[in-house]
């Protein structure tokens, strides 16, 4: 019954969405804001990657909000899972059979890849204003690096939750502080500071790289925390 009515309404929705799509100016959108940004980004922000200018410059508050959402999600996961399962898990840790390290290949490969991943992650973060990439992407790579370590050696490697939370707090706070500094200088919140530097070089685009560093750390820490929390619980259940 549900399936058929779902099918009926879904097909209605498909039809209506298709009609709407037909009405949209596909492929040649007005781009009012987009063009203005493409014109002005070089002078106003100074990042070669215009997307970065948008993410951290024009729409910096969105990014802050998104970091907060990640933070909120991580907090909730921590709240929901720690309360019920971490303690239990700790008590019957030894009885579990599947807490072995992964096989030889995985362990050694991770040992090899881990530093590489760190470097790549940091590279992506620090070059976010020049190339495609940035704090989110780099942060994800960092998080993956750390969580892979834990996955292949669940018993020997553990990540200090306190450390993770301090990093995430620190990163979030520094993002806000960079924004508020501008406010104290009589400018607007999250206004880019420190001048533009030489265009398309590593040291350019003012505070944007710093912000991206904060974002990268934050995303890395949150995601690592999330992955670890979920991983632990999965093992426990």
């Amino acid at each position, binding site marked *: 019954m*549900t399936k058929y*009515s*779902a099918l009926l*309404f*879904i097909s*209605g*929705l498909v039809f*209506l969405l298709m*009609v*709407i799509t*037909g*009405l949209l100016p596909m492929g040649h959108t007005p781009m009012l804001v987009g063009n203005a940004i493409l014109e002005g980004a070089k002078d106003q922000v100074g990042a070669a990657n215009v997307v970065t200018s948008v993410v951290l410059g024009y729409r910096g508050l969105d990014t802050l909000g998104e970091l907060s959402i990640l933070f909120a999600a991580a907090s909730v996961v921590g709240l929901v899972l720690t309360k019920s399962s971490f303690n239990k898990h700790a008590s019957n840790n030894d009885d579990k059979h599947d807490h072995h390290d992964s096989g030889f290949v995985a362990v050694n490969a991770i040992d090899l890849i881990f530093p590489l991943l760190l470097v790549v992650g940091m590279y992506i973060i620090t070059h976010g204003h020049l190339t495609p990439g940035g704090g989110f992407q780099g942060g994800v790579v960092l998080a993956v690096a750390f969580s892979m370590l834990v996955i292949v050696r669940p018993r020997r490697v553990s990540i200090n939750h306190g450390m993770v939370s301090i990093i995430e707090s620190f990163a979030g706070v520094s993002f806000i502080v960079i924004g508020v500094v501008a406010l104290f200088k009589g400018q607007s919140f999250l206004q880019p500071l420190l001048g533009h530097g030489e265009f398309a070089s590593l040291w350019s685009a003012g505070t944007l790289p710093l912000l991206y560093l904060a974002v990268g750390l934050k995303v890395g820490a949150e995601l690592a925390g999330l992955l670890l929390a979920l991983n632990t619980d999965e093992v426990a259940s």
Partner: protein
Amino acid sequence: MTFLDHLFIVVFISLIAISALRNLRIVDKLAPVLYGLILIMLVRMSSVAYGGDVYLSSVSLDLLDFKMHWQFTALSWYFAIITVVAALASAVFMSGDWGRQYREQGGNYGMLQLALIVNVFSMILLLGSGDLLSLFIGWEFVSWASFLMMVLSPTKLAKKSAVKYIVYAMTGAMALMVAIVMIYSVNNSLEFKQIGEVFTQMSTSSQLALVLLFFVAFAIKMGLLPFHLWQAIAYAETPGPGAAFLGAISSRMGMFTIVLVIVQFIGLGGLKQLGISFVNMQTLLAWVAALTTIIPTYIALQQHDAKRLLAWHGVGQGGYMLLGIIMFDSIGSAGGLMHVLNHASYQAALFMTVVAVMYRTGTSDLNKLGGLVTQMPLTFLVMLIGIIGLAGLPPMNGFVSKWLVYRSLLVNGQPLLFVAAVLGTLGTILSVYKLIHNTFLGQLRLEHQNVREVPWSMLVPMLGLSIIVFITGFMPGLILPWIASVQESVGLPVIAHHLGGIEYAKGGLDMIWVSGILFYGFGVGALIFYFLGGKSKRVHQYDNYAGGHFLTSDVRYHYSNNFYPGLMHLIGGWYRGSFKWLENSIVSVVSFFSIFFENIYRAKQPVMLLLIGVVLALFALYRNLGVGA
């Protein structure tokens, strides 16, 4: 400051004083004084009832761009004086021993006093309303005030019926609100005179809707068919004098608004133009009124609780009032209006007698009483006067108003309505006989051997009311000037009157003559009975023989259970729950939709609802807007 302001101030101060002092004994004595004061304030304004100018209040409220003001016309004054006298009588009644007993039995006496003054306050506010908004506010106040009084009853049934009442009242209020909104939306004004102006501008269907909405609102308050189910139980279960007050006047606020709105502003022409072929709004309302006189009366006949019997009669008598006023001629409307006062006076007196009997015997069950005439002769006298009034027999005031109504029906060529009204009266006579017979006549019960007459604090208001019943019946000319100015103020043809009654081309009425002849006849009969009939011997009540056997005092020979069995057998089936069915079916419909919506809210997969909502919304837009690229 006009006299009207003084009235409002006094009423308001009384409200404050009684609510502040309600838990002290002093309130017993204070309340009657305050009602007396209010009465004096009203009497000061009596010029309005003799054709004087309308009293305007100097207070007006500007709230949210609505201007509210208050005024007292002859109509308001007429209803107000009934209200205040009824309240005064009730307050005196409960000030003495009744109040003490009520307190001892765990009743909340302070709340009762408070409810009474709140009722008076809100009724005065309603009666004094000068525009539709203040009318609505007063209307709501009256509803909630009577709810306050009803919930004071300790029994579960009474509370249930009070809740039922408030649902009905809210329905009425909402209907009234829609009607007011309809008027407001035409000219953006809430003045009374807008009703008439807007009415003429409206389309026929809107006119019909407007009249029906107003009528539903007022009919619910007045307990007209088919909205009568709440009233009787709710009133009957209200404690003591509260029931007397509510039964006397509360539901007549519906009558007030009918006269104020429908009679005054929509008028006969307006009602007559609505309808198809021979059925127009006037005949419809008249038949509603006629049925209201019959059906509740015969329900009353079936009751074996004295208070309920009276309360059902209260519903039925409302029909006469509407029947009279809906004729729109001088005598009919005079009859309808006068019946308000008459009914209030005898209904309050009758309720008080029943409460007095309850005070002494602890029951109002007609199957458990009897023979109290020897113990409570004055109460008996009051009840006798009251039931003569209620039955509409000379020389009491009920006769006058009912005569006027009958006369009007005949003159206007409505024989069927006349028959219906007479049928109602027949039922009334039967059931009031049951009331007085089962209570006061016949065999005195053993457990009532030591019952005494009630104290003077209760007798005085009862006797006072019965004097009013008699005097206004004997000399209706005392009241008729008020009626005449009411008629004048609402634009009805004015009745020609004198002290004894009315002058009318097709046969007037002079109650002084009628009563004179009646008393003359009684006198002759008494003479024959006492002097020519000769011998009678006074025996003790238990000195009885039947079939040659001595009847001991514990043998029950008082015929009270299952009164009128043949009649009951005939009519019983018709009355059993026919309107209950209506009420229940409404509840069932609401239940049905409620379960339907509940199941929507219990969706196993809420996202489905989201999908359906989105698709339907988009589809509606698609249908409305098309895809004009």
